[in-house]
């Protein structure tokens, strides 16, 4: 230790190496990815900013902030050495979707939030490195053959092909179980394919990641809605266990007067038309989408940023975000807020809608809103917005997008009577992802409520481990009271 201290302290480059980006004035006219990615040289330099610090009794490491526990120091070390092949291998040990998470993970609050370098300077760009390695692997076709062990003879059904379901499927297939995914839409990926726009997450990447899962031996049935075609009970007749990862796909509404006017869409409808159905390439693709001169998006999360930025690209003159708290409370990732601001999205903060006003033909024309101020913190710890009497005002809008949240998808709980749910409609699960129904596990947004890609994947990892244990060594199941309690508590 003493010796180490004598060594001249390593000079730290204070800032992350820049991420080359499309210029705002260019990118608002296309759907191409905004950050274009770092080159190998920059990635090595960025990796060299890492101190390779060791875990101490009171010292948390980057790894502790990663929900899937990637061995971050190890993969960065290999990157420093320029050994990208080994580096991506280390990531792949824990992470099925590195090209996705390297792009959309809220790393500032996770791995990078715990980075020691970040105490005084900018943290090491862990997310960027992860993205670089995954892209390198894809571009160099270094996927390699996936070694699969002998089949175990166990059959697993996964309901929903989003991040949670894909993770479960990948993990279990790679230990020799026979896995089948049932996905309602024509493509797998969940929100990654229908929600998050192309300019943040190219669909080609999702497709390639799904392909990796398929090459791990997973069978995928698309266009297959569980609860309509087969129920979970039907699946249990044929499969040893079932994992439910159906996500939070039910849009929340404001329930304000005028919400059914034409031109008012849920974020889900808007983004699905644009992303899944490629409406932004209409009429080359058939699904229509229309934006008026001014688009008002209600909400302040990632979904709202995606809507507002998509609208600019679809050619509106002005895109406005209406959010009831202040800038500091915006729930979206900081990077997305910056991107939105750079592109010219106007933020109408501390303001909430009261009513939507339409014309004689049933089209929305204005949003009536009211100014807000922040009061005492509420149960969520955030300061509660309070209406300022008499401060009503009108904003013109030909398109209004409702992006105020998502609730759990009700179809599977509705058609599986003995699956306990919480007051919020999520499926009640224990710490291993077990549900009140023996042999049925759940995870991701359907169990947690709308969260993040990496948390959904973390759930998937944990459930996969528990499912393997259940299948191979310990078929015991918690008593019904456990879930009784879980469903009341939450």
């Amino acid at each position: 230790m003493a010796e180490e201290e004598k060594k001249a302290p390593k000079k730290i480059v204070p800032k992350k190496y820049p991420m080359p980006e499309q210029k705002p004035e260019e990118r608002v006219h296309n759907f191409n990815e905004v950050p274009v990615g770092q080159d190998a040289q920059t990635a090595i330099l960025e990796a060299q900013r890492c101190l390779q610090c060791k875990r101490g009794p009171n010292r948390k490491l980057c790894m502790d902030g990663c929900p899937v526990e990637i061995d971050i120091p190890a993969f960065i070390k290999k990157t420093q050495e320029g050994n990208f092949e080994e580096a991506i291998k280390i990531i792949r040990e824990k992470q099925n979707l590195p090209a996705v998470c390297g792009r959309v993970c809220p790393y500032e609050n996770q791995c990078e939030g715990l980075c020691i370098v970040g105490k005084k300077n900018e943290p090491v760009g862990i997310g960027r490195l992860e993205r670089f390695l995954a892209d390198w692997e894809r571009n160099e076709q270094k996927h390699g053959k996936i070694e699969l062990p002998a089949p175990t003879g166990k059959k697993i059904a996964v309901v929903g092909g989003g991040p949670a379901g894909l993770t479960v499927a990948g993990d279990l297939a790679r230990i020799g179980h026979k896995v089948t995914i049932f996905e309602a839409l024509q493509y797998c990926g969940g929100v990654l394919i229908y929600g998050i726009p192309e300019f943040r997450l190219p669909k080609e990447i999702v497709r390639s990641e799904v392909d990796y899962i398929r090459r791990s031996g997973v069978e995928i049935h698309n266009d297959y809605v569980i609860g309509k075609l087969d129920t979970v009970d039907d699946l249990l007749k044929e499969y040893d266990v079932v994992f439910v990862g159906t996500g939070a796909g039910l849009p929340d509404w404001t329930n304000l007067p005028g919400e059914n006017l034409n031109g008012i869409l849920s974020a889900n409808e808007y983004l699905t038309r644009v992303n899944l159905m490629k409406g932004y390439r209409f009429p080359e693709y058939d699904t229509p989408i229309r934006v008026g001169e001014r688009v008002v998006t209600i909400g302040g999360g990632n979904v709202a940023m995606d809507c507002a930025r998509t609208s600019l690209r679809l050619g509106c003159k002005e895109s406005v975000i209406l959010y009831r708290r202040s800038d500091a409370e915006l729930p979206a990732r900081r990077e997305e807020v910056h991107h939105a601001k750079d592109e010219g999205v106007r933020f109408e903060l501390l303001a909430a809608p009261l009513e939507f006003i339409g014309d004689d033909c049933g089209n929305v024309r204005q949003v009536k809103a009211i100014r807000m101020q922040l009061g005492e913190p509420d149960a969520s710890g955030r300061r509660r917005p309070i209406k300022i009497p008499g401060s009503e005002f009108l904003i013109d809008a030909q398109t209004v997008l409702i992006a105020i949240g998502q609730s759990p998808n009700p179809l599977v709980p509705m058609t599986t009577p003995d699956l306990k749910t919480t007051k919020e409609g999520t499926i009640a699960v224990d710490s291993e992802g077990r549900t009140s129904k023996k042999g049925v596990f759940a995870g991701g947004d359907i169990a947690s409520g709308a969260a993040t890609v990496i948390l959904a994947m973390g759930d998937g990892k944990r459930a996969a481990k528990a499912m393997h244990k259940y299948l191979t060594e310990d078929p015991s199941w918690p008593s019904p009271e456990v879930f009784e309690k879980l469903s009341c508590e939450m």
Partner: protein
Amino acid sequence: MYEIVKSEKLTPDVIKLEIRAPNIARKAKAGQFIMVTPTEHGERIPLTMADFSPENGTVTIAALEVGKTTKELGKMKAGDKVFSLVGPLGLPTHLNQYGNVVSIGGGIGLALMYPVVRAFKQSGNHTINIIGARNEKLLMYEKEINTVSDEFFVCTDDGSKGHHGFVSDILKKLIAENKKIDLVYAVGPIIMMKVIANITKPFNIPTVVSLNPIMVDGTGMCGSCRVIIGGETKFGCVDGPEFDGHKVDFDNLTARNKRYIPEEQISLKRFQEAK
């Protein structure tokens, strides 16, 4: 990909397709629909199942060729493949031993009402079926519906067959004759369903209509299909497509169904010019 087993024209602009989809066929019930995407670049459109056969593993759809997507389906032949089919979606028709059931179909609704009236009959109801079209050439499923009818009426707007006039005339006549009616079921153009609901309302005759709002996913995820029922917002794809006709806000539905007309015209023009 789903193979088309049989393709035929029912009228000059109605196509009937039988498609291999064993999974859907084995679960389908009267009143349910499927989301069809003809090609990879296509849009997802809802179409009611005009029939289904678990034995043959096929479902049958009948589509009125109004725009790009339905016209594209109209060009498809046996052996061609449809990109994607999802279903069965929506709630099946609520079946019960109601007593006297009057079912009314117009236009494309004729193809869709057949499995429903058949199910009414099988559930032990006295079935009175009224079908209508603009003229004789546009009538469909006449024979099939007749075989499951206890009483059967045909109407044409131009009088070329059956009663000269609207299906609603027959309903009014039945009501005027004090016929006992326990349920009215209507499927067809929005305006027709609205008229029927307005006729039965003063007499408190329970009336079910099958709505056709614009859909995207068909599974309750997007809210494109929202309709106002008794002042409340419902999703046509998961809460419907059938609703209490006396509670439907038909004017809102009519306005909402027009919301992409300019784009639909661009699509159609482009499709027709490409031919």
